[in-house]
């Protein structure tokens, strides 16, 4: 009888990469819904564009590398990158923005480094930063929440805006971004930053219709959506608690200290936590396992450093938000962090 030989263990937990990646994508859904609700269906268009683009690029590069296409594509990692990038850029950004982003993320940041598992940097965030520095106008053109828009934009108009830059009636995106008060709307983080630079206090700035009691209108809900998704990831043990918790705690502490030090020019902890990309960053971006620290102790340090950098850049830097920059910067430090945070192995060191 011919017997099959195999190496132990002969059993497996049936966890798979695909399932892991798809779970993360699924966990994005609450945040996605909030985005669609407050910022229109443009984000869905971006999502489809991104998924098509990443699939095409991943397949192309696998063919060029003479590797099987489907196993690489089906692990879902490229799709996750596409989803995260689509969620990060302004919903009505021109179509080529997301395409360039996907190209950069998949081909350069991921595959040129050796493919999944070998990339030093978070592909979605590297692409985001590339887009931000290359196309600052398009990348900061966030619409105000639908409630505040002068003339609500329908799905077709959004489609036209993305692909042709103009609505059917010939308005440009800039014209469409005009708020009810006739002024162009920026994101809450941007607004506060600009206002403070103009000598207003935070309280005065937050009097604007852009804000509710705690944070930016709409943005708060988007963040809460991602928080919910993140909690689901924690519960399913897809991610460990270390990075999101240390990130959030670190950002909270920093902003609290800042608020106590300068209450007039500091927007406070809640504002920081529920504005911009804080929650998607904490649960979906910083936790990208490939580019994050891999030891639990290291993850605490990693998360905390990101939190610190986010606060510093938001408060003192030139950009309104800072998740992408912070994550990329700390990605660089990961090998070092990992090396010095090895857990104590059984039988080594202090045992009573």
């Amino acid at each position: 009888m011919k017997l099959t030989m195999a190496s132990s263990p002969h059993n497996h937990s049936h966890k798979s990469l695909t399932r892991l990646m798809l779970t993360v994508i699924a966990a994005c859904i609450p945040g996605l819904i909030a985005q669609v609700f407050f910022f229109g269906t443009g984000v869905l268009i971006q999502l489809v564009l991104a998924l098509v683009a990443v699939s095409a690029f991943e397949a192309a590069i696998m063919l060029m590398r003479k590797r099987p296409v489907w196993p690489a594509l089906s692990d879902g990692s490229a799709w996750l990158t596409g989803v995260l990038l689509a969620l990060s850029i302004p919903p009505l950004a021109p179509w080529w923005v997301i395409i360039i982003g996907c190209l950069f993320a998949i081909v350069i940041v991921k595959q040129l480094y050796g493919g999944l598992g070998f990339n030093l940097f978070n592909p979605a965030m590297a692409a985001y930063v590339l887009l931000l520095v290359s196309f600052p106008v398009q990348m900061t053109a966030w619409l105000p929440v639908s409630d505040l828009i002068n003339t609500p934009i329908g799905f077709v108009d959004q489609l036209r805006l993305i692909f042709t830059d103009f609505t059917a009636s010939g308005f440009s995106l800039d014209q469409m971004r005009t708020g009810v008060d006739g002024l162009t709307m920026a994101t809450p983080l941007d607004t506060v930053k600009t206002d403070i630079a103009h000598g207003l206090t935070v309280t005065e700035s937050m009097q604007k219709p852009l804000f509710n009691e705690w944070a930016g209108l709409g943005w708060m809900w988007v963040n809460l959506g991602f928080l919910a998704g993140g909690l689901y990831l924690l519960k399913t043990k897809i991610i460990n608690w270390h990075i999101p918790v240390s990130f959030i705690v670190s950002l909270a502490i920093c902003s609290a200290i800042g608020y106590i030090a300068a209450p007039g020019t500091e927007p406070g902890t809640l504002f920081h936590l529920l504005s911009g990309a804080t929650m998607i960053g904490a649960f979906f971006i910083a936790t990208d396992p490939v580019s994050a620290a891999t030891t639990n102790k290291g993850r605490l340090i990693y998360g905390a450093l990101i939190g610190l950098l986010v606060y510093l850049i938001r408060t003192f830097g030139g950009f309104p938000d800072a998740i992408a920059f912070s994550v990329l910067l700390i990605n660089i430090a990961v090998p070092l962090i990992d090396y010095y945070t090895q857990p104590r192995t059984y039988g080594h060191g202090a045992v009573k």
Partner: protein
Amino acid sequence: MEKLLEQIKKGTVWAFPGGVHPPQQKTLSNSAQIARLPLPDKLVVPLKQHIGANGKLIVEKGQHVLKGQPLTAPAANWSVPVHAPTSGTITDIAPMPSAHPSALPELSIIIEPDGNDEWCNLNPAINPAKLSHDELVDIIHQAGISGMGGAGFPTYVKADIKQPIEFLIVNAVECEPYITADDVLMREHAKQVVQGIELMQQILNPTLCIVGIEDNKPEAIAAMTQAAEHNANIVIQTVPTVYPSGGEKQLIKLLTNREVPSSGIPADIGILVHNTGTLFAVQQAVYEGKPLIERVITVTGNTIHKPGNVWALLGTEIKHLLDCQGFSPVPQQRVVMGGPMMGFTLPTVRIGVVKTTNCILAPDHKELAEPGPEKACIRCSACADACPASLLPQQLQWFAKSKEYDKLQEHNLFDCIECGACAYVCPSEIPLVQYYRVAKVEIKEQQAEKIKADRAKERFDARKERLEREQEERQNRHKRKPAAKSDDEKQKVADALARVKNKSDNGGEKSAVAAAIARAKAKKQQGEELEPDNTEVAKERALRKEQARKYKEQKSQTDDSGDTAPVDDKKSAVAAAIARAKAKKAAQAQGDQTNTDDANTAAPVDDKKAAVAAAIARAKAKKAAQAQNEQVNTDDADTAAPADDKKAAVAAIARAKAKKAAQAQDEQVNTDDADTAAPVDDKKAAVAAAIARAKAKKAAKAQDEQTNTDDADTTAPVDDKKAAVAAAIARAKAKKAAKAAEQTDQPNEPSINEKSTDNVKSEESQTDSPADNKKAAVAAAIARAKAKKAAKEAQQTEQSIEPNIDESQADNVKPEESQTDSVTDNKKAAVADAITRAKAKKAAKEAQQTQSNEDTEQVTAAEPETPSETSPEQTAAQKKKAAVAAAIARAKAKKLQKEGNDQS
């Protein structure tokens, strides 16, 4: 401490990090009673079923054995016997595929049962409680019990441990899915298991015995609790079901909150762990007198019709177990020995079960899916979260793939227990454990290679140094030569003669001989003590040497002093000249520690032969002087006294040959040897020797052939020719044997070759024995040349650090030969002499070997014989010979002194 005991007694169980929860699948097999199987058609009992050495085979093919009869006897350390599992006939003893992941063939005894299942005489202990520690350990040892949980560590070694044991832990966790062997054993035989525990308590006297059982075995827990009720020192502890809580280290952490230090053993922290099955076997051995011949094995999996536990005789083929329980294989069937997490797949079902086999698992592909393709690691750290040793498998696999061995060790690869939890949870389905196993082997190989390389480098450096030194010596010699020539030869000769006369007047032959013998004996005694404490003697000799040197200097200064002694023999003059030359050479070789008392030994008796003898002595002395660490056997001296002149010459040749043989390992020198040997004008001898050498060389090259060392003692030479041929054959064989032996132990290669050729060469001397006096002189010259070579060689030998077993095996050949050689006439005696010397040297090396085995015993036993044979001859010898003997003895003394210096 008190607190810990209290906590344990209260039932506190700690936790270890990580762990996984694979599907248990235990209910498949734990509902039925342990079944008895019909006798199989044949049993394949491997000699080695445990960690440690094989037992010694004590049965032979065709023998009828009874059930329980020992088939092997414990021999070396950590060897436990195996027993006949049933009565029957031994049909074969041959290597068979073993129950090991590699299935490498292992020497096995194949028994065909006679169907009677007839026990041999059993000797159950009448009152086990009265047995002493040693008696119990011996019973356990003789019963062939080794750990039955997995590793197969000899139980008697654990029982006989010297460290104080605080906690005896019984591993009844059985955390691997599917396996229920211990579970059902405890349910059915809790009483016996507890008796086994109590025996262990009796042996080890621990403070507390803790039985750890996973909470998925409530029946076993109940049975054990009840059985151990009467003994307050046994605590039954329930541990949560987590894989791998049954790992020794994990269980210790669970039950005592202690950690076994890395690369330590549990006994280091006062803990000993035994498996349930082992304790049952101990109880059977003591109470019933039954050796370990059967064990409980779980036969399970979805392809088995009747999954359950069976009593399987050791050696039962897996096929029999599967057939008895009903087995319908699926395509690409896997049959796993052990559990699904740590078990290994078998290449064939024609493998006998062994003492460590606890489960045969034949799963289908639904319950245990075949591994999917390996994907890239995304560093999700699921593996690190599952690792019970708190390692970072994700990092380890990265380093293992890129072969970064330093990093692997920095990340404590060797603390990996290969439990497979990491690979179990890996979403990328990376066979992590496999990577670690390979990396571990590679690192170990690398380390071994490094040691080898270091040693080679050492040797190389030493050689370079030696060559440089030699070159320097040569240059010095050239410088001094003119001065030597300016000496008046005749005067020198006269001086020498005078000295000799002086001496013979002073001493008298008998006393000289007696002194030589006495010295030699004293030396031998010291040699036997392994650590000769001869610093005092050495000092004495050093003093004497000093005087000799002074004397010589003085002499060379006062060359023109009157010639008092008659110059009556040209030849003696020549001999003396040679002697002087040699003495100088020796002096240079030694730096300030010159062997200038060669001058003494150089004193030629007005006889050719004396000159020859002296030359020999000098040659030897030189060699000795250069030998630094070598503990040269002091026996040399008393055997060295040659019976008559001729024989002296012969002996010289023999020695020369032996030395040449020492160089044969380099194989470059052989051609020179051939040249120098040519002048011996006994044609036959020369031819024979040449043939022999050629053969020996050829044999040395023959690598793979395995010949018995026994072959060598077939030589009983009658006349010279035949002797030569026989010797040649013997030599070739010995070499071959040495080679064969060497295959098992490569690092020691050079020393083996040397030794074996050594043996052989000394025998060669027989072929040269017909040489007459003239030839003797020539031979002496050759001998000197050789001696020098040998001296270099000796240095090299020192570098080879470990004298080894193979050497001693080669030695074995020698004693037997020497006995055949001990012939009554003088010639032969001389030959024997030479051989003895060669042997003695070898023996000295041997003595260094502390872990000596029976081989060494043989050698040392043989030693005393030859000297006693030769000494009567010495006393019968004439005066001349006595002088020669004295000279030789002095030479030896020098050697010894040199040794003394080195040691001090």
